[in-house]
């Protein structure tokens, strides 16, 4: 292991993962391939990655359900491999898939979970009522789980995970499959939990979610952690502080017409200069970090410029340069880079 580190579990570290490797017995490749990170107490940490990146596997190891092939993992100071029983009492787990107990009602799901974890009888009912209310489930309390919508089931699973007041909460894709309103509701609850001091590790393949909820984000792909920082730092350091989307038309193709846009590549045959030259020259401009061609959803050449400075100041030089190349700037849009841009930068492909 390159980053050999004596596990220094400091009191303010809630999760500590060092060189974690998991290879499933029936697989030729590592599902998790040497991941290291740690999460401060009270922090909300997001693991962002596409399908099959290894997010659930990482959570599986941290929640004692998957035995790692290598490396070590500590949760709330407890070695999850050496002492899984103690680790389980410190964690709440919301899995990616509905695993509610179908033989029990919603309320019984919460109450039995509390009993498994030894919450005293006198506190169980009050706690269940409070959580049912907090998650807007009071009127469904006596229903069976198979009568719930996906969003309601998700809320029940979060409420259940909180019944024993765990200091560390794992949420595996907490809002996948939820409608926008349900998503916002779940986000609000997660924020409340984070504010109340619960350490949260969540996974997502939605950069909005990572950006909105997580104090720090780890970008994971093919079992490897590609980058780890605050969402702002990740975007600023890797892809600049602003973006400028431009649409360029060359003489013959402008103004756009319906037939022109229907043709596969209208600019390529008409433009007096190859597109690549324009892009290369844009990249040379002062303040431009990188230029990326965007898949055209209309006529013209579309590109995104990643910038370090004030984007407004670059509009004029860009227009000028495009003009000298024989083109015309037909649309300009200022934006801020997102984690999606970071992901594209790191992996060369889009997240979804």
């Amino acid at each position, binding site marked *: 292991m390159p980053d050999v580190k004596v596990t220094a579990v400091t009191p303010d570290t809630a999760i500590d993962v060092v060189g974690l490797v998991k290879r499933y017995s029936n697989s030729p490749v590592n599902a998790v391939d040497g991941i290291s990170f740690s999460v401060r107490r009270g922090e909300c940490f997001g693991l962002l990655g596409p399908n099959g990146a290894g997010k659930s596997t990482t959570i599986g190891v941290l929640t*004692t359900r998957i035995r790692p092939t290598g490396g070590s993992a500590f949760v709330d100071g407890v070695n999850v491999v050496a002492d899984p029983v103690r680790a389980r*009492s410190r964690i709440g787990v919301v899995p990616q898939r509905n695993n509610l107990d179908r033989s029990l009602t919603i309320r019984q799901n919460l109450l039995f979970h509390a*009993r*498994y974890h030894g919450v005293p009888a006198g506190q169980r009912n009050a706690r269940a009522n409070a959580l049912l209310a907090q998650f807007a489930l009071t009127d469904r309390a006596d229903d069976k789980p198979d009568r719930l919508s996906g969003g309601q089931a998700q809320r029940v699973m979060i409420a259940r995970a909180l019944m024993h007041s765990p200091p560390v909460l794992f949420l595996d894709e907490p809002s996948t499959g939820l409608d926008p309103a349900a998503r916002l509701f779940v986000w609000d609850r997660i924020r409340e939990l984070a504010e109340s001091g619960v350490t949260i590790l969540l996974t997502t393949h939605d950069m909005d979610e990572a950006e909105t909820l997580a104090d720090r984000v780890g970008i994971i792909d093919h079992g490897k952690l590609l980058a780890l920082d605050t969402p702002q730092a990740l975007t600023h350091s890797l892809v600049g502080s602003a973006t400028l989307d431009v649409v360029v038309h060359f003489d013959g193709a402008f103004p756009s017409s319906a037939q022109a846009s229907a043709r596969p590549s209208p600019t390529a045959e008409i433009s007096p200069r190859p597109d690549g030259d324009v892009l290369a020259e844009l990249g040379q401009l002062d303040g431009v970090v990188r230029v990326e061609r965007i898949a055209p959803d209309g006529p013209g050449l579309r590109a995104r410029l990643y910038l370090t400075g004030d984007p407004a100041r670059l509009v004029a030089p860009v227009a000028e340069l495009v003009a000298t190349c024989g083109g015309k700037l037909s649309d300009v849009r200022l934006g801020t880079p997102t984690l999606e841009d970071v992901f594209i930068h790191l992996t060369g492909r889009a997240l979804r």
Partner: protein
Amino acid sequence: MSLVRSPARSGAGHAFFAILGRDIVATGRELPIFLAQVGLQPLFLLFIFGKILTTLGYATGDYAKLLFPGIVALTAALTGLQSTALPLVVEFSWTKEIEDRLLAPLPTWLVGVEKMVFAALRALVASLVMFPVGIGVLGSIPWRLGGLGLLVAVLILGALIGAAIGLTLGTLVPPNRIQIMFALILTPLLFTGCNQYPWPSLSHLRWFQVITAMNPITYVSEGMRAALTPFIPHIAPWICLVGLLVSLAVFASLGLWGFLRRAID
């Protein structure tokens, strides 16, 4: 919501009984259905072989006395088996609902032990129900107070063995093949367990006697006969008990090993 950690009563024992409580609550309401489900087959076996065949004269009245202990034994073992095998397949591969219990603060193998204990409890209830059923169908059943201790021991072990075999099947057989396995395993188990004939009488069918000696249910049946109908030739009680303990050790180890394999990737 308060973040203050409630002073939790911890301890694996507490979690174990909480999980047992869950199983009792989850299946308590279904008790009549459950009894119908597991009681129907032995009821018909008793009725056809113990009542109809003897009434028609194809079997003597003594046959019912021989059959009854075997049917109680069969009920204990097969109910135990059915109470672990299929539920485990469903909970592990389909509903995943066992996950919340696997995340409870107790060693994972204890969750498997709980499954076995609960299945054995169900099997005991079912086999006890066979006594009034036997009286109803046959008119009278063999009964001996002196055999009570042995009867209880044999039934408990038989129920646990059934549960352990079910745990083994439910966790080691791939979920998509469990139906086939059931068909291939249940029927031989049902007919090679000396439920319908006493083991010593097989002495001139040596090869079949050897086969039946390998079926753990044989020792349940023979132990039951030793307890209820000692006048019928049977395997000595101590051999039955040793056979049962060895079978239990083997299948419980296999089953718990399979359970751990399924529970932790």
